[in-house]
């Protein structure tokens, strides 16, 4: 068996060498004929090919160094490599263009980032996809194909997490974005006094860390806490609301908290978008007798459409990954038995975390749920682009 494998492997370098030397020969034939003037493009390709081939040969010899090859082979393959390098340099000089070397610099500049992203981003993304076809109990892993995806439908916890996440998404994102839009439209009006102060103040929540503000809200929304106290003093409610004790009110708390944190942030996007809308547009509308309401719906919203799509997608992605808030609002935080009363704050990300680090680790199943989030993000972004009708 091994012999059958080795024979073509031994032959391959020679084959590559032949192709490489042929391309060198072809490229060389063209060079002397056209000194200093423009080259047929294929010479450059040819030289590049020969270089690539030469590198492959050298790599082959280095990798299979246990295969016995006479020293002469090494020498010839390195000679091919040097030859093609020299040829390329000649070409570069002759064309008097930096095209090739510039291209190299291009790769050089992006190399570190690309390598880091490949290792810490693309490799995990792909590995995760493979993992989602496996079931693991601790260290033991076995291939289950689409079994994990089938398991999802019967998993009550997953359904609950999915439902909770979607409730947050459907209720919180529109409220927040609409509020941000209204605020932006108001604060874009130059006749409003103290605009800077209002902007700064409303943006300020976006500075806080997610964990810090969540815990602040947890304290404010405790049963005998500040919110209940104030509401009772103002005679809005008679009984204290069990904010974080009741499944419904716990969700309301998360929605209020998130709206507080992100409205100003989104408002700033709209404000910067509105800067490119000429004031004359509003003035003309004013003269035509359009009310503020009409201006809002017929000028502000259409002009901001691309930014609204952008913020919607960003908020969607953010909400689908919701983790810090439910984790820190729930009793006992990371170590708590449930996430929120009756798991009412259990989101997909929290469930993934639990599957990996709290229960008996089942990385395969957790990866499956992670990919469910990817699919949802992809589908929702696609729909949002379609609805907006933008061809960006």
């Amino acid at each position: 068996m091994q012999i059958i494998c080795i024979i073509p492997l031994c032959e391959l370098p020679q084959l590559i060498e032949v192709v490489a030397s042929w391309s060198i020969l072809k490229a060389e034939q063209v060079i002397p004929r056209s000194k200093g003037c423009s080259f047929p493009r294929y010479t450059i390709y040819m030289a590049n090919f020969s270089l690539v081939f030469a590198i492959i040969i050298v790599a082959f010899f280095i990798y299979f160094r246990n295969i016995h090859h006479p020293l002469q082979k090494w020498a010839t393959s390195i000679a091919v490599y040097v030859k093609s390098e020299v040829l390329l340099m000649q070409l570069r000089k002759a064309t008097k263009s930096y095209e090739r070397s510039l291209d190299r610099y291009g790769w050089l500049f992006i190399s570190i980032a690309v390598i880091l992203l490949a290792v810490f981003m693309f490799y995990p993304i792909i590995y995760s996809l493979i993992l989602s076809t496996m079931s693991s109990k601790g260290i033991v892993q076995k291939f289950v194909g689409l079994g994990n995806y089938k398991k999802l439908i019967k998993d009550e916890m997953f359904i609950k997490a999915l439902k909770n996440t979607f409730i947050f998404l459907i209720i919180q994102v529109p409220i927040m974005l609409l509020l941000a839009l209204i605020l932006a439209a108001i604060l874009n009006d130059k006749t409003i006094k103290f605009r800077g102060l209002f902007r700064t103040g409303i943006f300020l929540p976006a500075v806080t860390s997610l964990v810090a503000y969540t815990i602040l809200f947890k304290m404010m929304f405790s049963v005998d806490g500040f919110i209940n106290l104030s509401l009772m003093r103002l005679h809005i409610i008679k009984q204290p609301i069990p904010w974080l004790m009741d499944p419904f009110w716990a969700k309301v708390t998360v929605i209020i908290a998130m709206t507080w944190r992100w409205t100003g942030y989104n408002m700033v996007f709209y404000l910067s978008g509105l800067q490119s809308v000429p004031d004359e547009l509003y003035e003309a509308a004013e003269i035509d007798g359009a009310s503020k309401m009409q201006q809002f719906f017929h000028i502000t919203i259409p002009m901001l459409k691309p930014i609204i799509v952008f913020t919607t997608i960003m908020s969607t992605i953010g909400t689908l990954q919701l983790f810090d808030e439910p984790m820190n609002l729930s009793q006992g935080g990371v170590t708590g038995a449930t996430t929120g009363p009756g798991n009412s704050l259990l989101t997909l990300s929290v469930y993934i975390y639990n599957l990996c680090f709290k229960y008996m680790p089942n990385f395969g199943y957790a990866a499956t749920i992670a990919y469910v989030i990817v699919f949802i993000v992809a589908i929702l972004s696609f729909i949002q682009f379609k609805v907006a009708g933008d061809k960006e």
Partner: protein
Amino acid sequence: MKKIRLSRIIIYLFLILMFLISVFPFYWMIVGMTNSAVDVIKGKMTFGNQFFHNAKVLFSNYDVKRIFFNSIKISTLTVLGSLAISSMAAYGFEFYPSKAREKTYAIILLSMMVPFAALMIPLFRLIVKLNLLNTHRGLILTSLASVFIIFFFRQSFKSFPKEIIQAARVDGAGEFKIFTSIVVPSMKSTYAAAAIYSFMTSWNAYLWPLIILQSDKQKTMTLLISSMSSAYFPEYGAIMLAIVIATLPMIIIFFTLQNYFVQGMTGSLKQ
């Protein structure tokens, strides 16, 4: 005329209400750090005299100084590294146009859509394999290349005149020299904005540090606050103080570099 007046008043009332709601928690957190745990949870809104008690509780039970400097160290190194790497990458993408690189860029941008949860598990295993669990190096290394920052830099490089670079090349300047001595100095505000964005993300990070920094010595401020509040008998006054300490750097940066700050948030949208 009267109608306009009325709507004006409603608008101002609305603005003031939103302003108060936005700012109140900041006031409350400062008040909270001077009150006892019971008063905090009862919603006391005036300053108390428990500040020194809270400080004592916080500083004697937790190594706050160390944790604070952990946070500072991680964020600063992340900012420096990711600015250098990401701006270089953006420069490569923008000023050396080629089809292959454009495709690479498109793939990189697309990966922005993938939520962190999808990489979390393999990334965790990778960190374990590389023996970087429980180290700051692991945390920094994984957050060095940020897609968003590459995107942000590229958007602002688009407005940089290409003729200047061409002229420098004619004068015989090397490619790296052009980048470090012509492009970087004239893009200071972009760097400032990106630095703020990067600092904020790294300072406020929770999920990833929670996973890879498991020992108390390596913790960051966010992890400290989170673990303090999930204790059986949370010391609310001390938590408030910790929250103030964790929020203060961001507020200081916000007020000193406000323009860059907002630019950092929205600058990527300019084109």
